């Protein structure tokens, strides 16, 4: 007998909340849930482990996703149908799907210094020129890249760091030929 999949519930969730504001709320709720899930080990263990009853998991979800009723309902249903593991394994896929529905692009920017607001604004304006205004930007500091910038735009990776350029030099031998 065919049973419902996470995707079925996800389609139901997105069609039920078809307005942009509602979808935004669902997205915020789900991404908050995913953030908490990724960062809090005890919550992760509780939600994944089958020894905890659904009621405990539902209480946890209610605490995490208190602002959005639809997202909470969605998560409760997938727990009821024992599909939480499947959702968690594909969480990035569903968030990406929601971002696509919202016309949002997630970009993670890695620079050597995130204290310079002027530089961050410059980067932001340039990125908006390329991918539009609807961006979900996050900045991360990493001094090992030496300089420049690394962009993770959804699934695409753009390396404009000095470390990346230096790493390319490692492919060249002493005679200046590319190593096979």
């Amino acid at each position, binding site marked *: 007998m065919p049973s419902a999949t996470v995707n079925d519930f996800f389609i139901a969730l997105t069609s039920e909340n078809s307005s942009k504001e509602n979808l935004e709320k669902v997205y915020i709720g789900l991404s908050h849930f995913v953030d908490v899930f990724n960062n809090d080990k005890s919550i992760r263990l509780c939600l994944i482990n089958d020894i905890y009853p659904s009621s405990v998991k539902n209480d946890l979800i209610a605490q995490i996703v208190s602002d959005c009723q639809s997202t909470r309902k969605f998560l409760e249903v997938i727990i009821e149908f024992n599909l939480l593991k499947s959702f968690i394994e594909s969480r990035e896929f569903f968030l990406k799907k929601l971002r696509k529905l919202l016309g949002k692009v997630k970009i993670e920017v890695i620079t050597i*210094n995130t204290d310079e607001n002027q530089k961050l604004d410059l980067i932001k304006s340039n990125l908006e020129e390329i991918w539009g205004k609807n961006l979900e930007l996050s900045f991360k500091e990493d001094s090992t890249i030496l300089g*420049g910038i690394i*962009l993770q735009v959804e699934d695409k990776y753009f390396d404009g760091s000095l*470390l990346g350029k230096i790493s390319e030099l490692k492919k060249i031998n*002493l005679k200046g030929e590319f190593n096979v």
Partner: protein
Amino acid sequence: MSEEINIASQLKFASQHLFNLIVFIGILYYFLKDIVVSFFSNRSKKISREIQEANKVIEASQEAYNSSSQKINLIDSELTELRNSIDLITSRKTNDIIDNANLVANKIKNDTHDIIQLESLKLQSEVENSILNKAIEVAQDEIATEVTNDKDSELIISFLSEVKQNAVSNS
């Protein structure tokens, strides 16, 4: 004259004794002839029989000797054949072993030559890599000290304009 009487008496005495001796011999001959003859005849027969038996034994021994001699000759020739065959096989085997040893030695020699060449190439590339890595490390240190905020901004703008161009050309 007395001398003549003495001689005659002596001759008489001698002839009497000679007669007695002849009679005694005749009596002995008469009574002992058959016994002595049969004794010697039996002895002669016995000796003859013993000689025959000895001859038979000698013949049998000769036959046995001949047979053994033939067998010994046969064994000897077989041994010679075996020795020759063993020598031949040993020689062939020795040659085979020597050939194999030469082949293996040549193979090992060639392999060793190849390994030495590969290892030297590997070492050369390792040395080159370590030189490159050191050079890159030095370059990294140099760059790290030389990168200022302005230079970093320039790099970022130049890279973003590259990304923009790529995005435009892809769309």
